[in-house]
């Protein structure tokens, strides 16, 4: 038995909002792969929960009217990875979430839960940062949209107002059209492990595929929340495709990221890995975009 004080099941988003208003102390449980484990660990023992897991309307991937990719917040990692829209437009997101935990965890874990935890090591997070994802939040006052960068406030804290539920994650057409991406997770084990560092890169090439039109580089575990690397990105714009460019841009990420020492890895080691995985992810993204890299 879990140490749960009370549990309320929401049948719809409106229902969830109402339950959260009636029980202001209650926390939301989606797939529960983090919340239930924390209860077992005694961290949230005695909580009141509002379960949104039964709201099927929050599952699935589709295009919205503006051509943005709309991912329902309860869509599981395995369903994201298998989804035809994701595979066609942003396959890197499927690849990234395929590195979460193990197969059973990917069946229960949801993209909404993964982002609402506000954890920097979430495999989906750096990739969503790279795609300039928009978070859709539904609350008593209606719906609001927030760039994912603003959604993350600090370690473990996201901008979720009282009685608000994250209902979808949107990838605007302008941020996926013409972009190719790659995610690299650096961890000790290939399964059931948390990233020591994760780097997600998107690149758009010029029409003649000779220069980088735009690059977006995002990291997980390089700071308390996932982050982008503005200096490196500015440097990449308009550069020719060469190993020299890749090296230069990758080294520039160190102006933006602040990895720290922890028992998992030392700061110096993380910095070294950060540059190396940025290089590899840049190279791979360029190749996916049909670019040829000069030696």
């Amino acid at each position, binding site marked *: 038995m879990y140490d749960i004080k009370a549990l309320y099941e929401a049948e719809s988003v409106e229902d969830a909002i109402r339950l959260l208003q009636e029980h202001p102390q209650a926390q939301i449980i989606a797939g529960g792969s983090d919340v239930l484990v924390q209860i077992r660990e005694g961290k949230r023992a005695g909580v009141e929960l509002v379960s949104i897991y039964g709201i099927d309307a929050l599952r699935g991937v589709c295009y919205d009217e503006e051509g943005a990719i709309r991912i329902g917040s309860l869509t599981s990692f395995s369903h994201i990875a298998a989804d035809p829209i994701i595979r066609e437009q942003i396959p890197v997101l499927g690849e990234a979430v395929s590195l979460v935990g193990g197969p*059973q965890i990917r069946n229960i874990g949801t993209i909404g839960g993964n982002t609402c935890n506000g954890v920097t090591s979430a495999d989906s997070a750096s990739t969503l940062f790279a795609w300039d994802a928009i978070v859709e939040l539904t609350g008593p006052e209606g719906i609001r949209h927030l760039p994912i960068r603003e959604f993350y406030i600090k370690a473990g804290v996201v901008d979720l107002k009282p009685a608000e539920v994250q209902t979808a994650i949107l990838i605007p057409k302008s941020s996926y059209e013409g972009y190719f991406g790659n995610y690299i997770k650096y961890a000790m084990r290939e399964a059931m492990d948390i990233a020591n560092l994760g780097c997600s890169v998107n690149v758009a090439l010029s029409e003649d595929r000779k220069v980088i039109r735009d690059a977006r580089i995002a990291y997980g575990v390089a700071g308390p929340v996932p982050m982008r690397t503005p200096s490196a990105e500015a440097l990449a714009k308009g550069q020719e495709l060469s190993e020299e460019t890749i090296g230069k841009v990758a080294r520039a990420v160190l102006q933006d990221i602040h990895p720290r020492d922890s028992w998992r890895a030392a700061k110096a080691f993380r910095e070294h890995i950060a540059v190396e995985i940025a290089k590899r992810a840049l190279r791979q993204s360029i190749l996916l975009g049909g670019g040829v890299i000069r030696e």
Partner: protein
Amino acid sequence: MSKQYKLIRCRINGKEREAMIDVRASLTDLLRNDFRLTSVKKGCEVGECGACNVLINGECFNSCIYLAIWADGKDILTLEGLEGPDGELSDIQQAFIDEAAVQCGFCTPGAIMSAVEILNEGRELSDEEIRIRMSGHLCRCTGYENIFRAVKKTMLARLAAAEKNK
């Protein structure tokens, strides 16, 4: 607060079932305590080892981190559901025996249920894919290679049989 209960209806190993459950129960609790399906093991109980793995609507879930209330309306399959009408073992169970993939046996039911999910796809997975798909199971007896062989062998045998019946 007084205890909270919920009536759930679901299908377990092909049979329609009903139970009045404590909302704090995990699906492991429900399957073991209410239905005596003891192939579902309590290992880590935090979703890391896969000993409690069952199929829900055809997909693998660690039942220790799945609330029993969510089972309402679902189709659940445990290892017990694999046996034939006269208690015969299924091909995948026999393969685990033949390949000596069972040592203490604690991880076995969970691992077999992941194998069932793979086999139900009815396609040939690469060695790498099989390893990835079985990666959610810890075997303290470290029989990983034998487990891999049992899964692969059964997959190939089923595909060959399906080919023949075409």
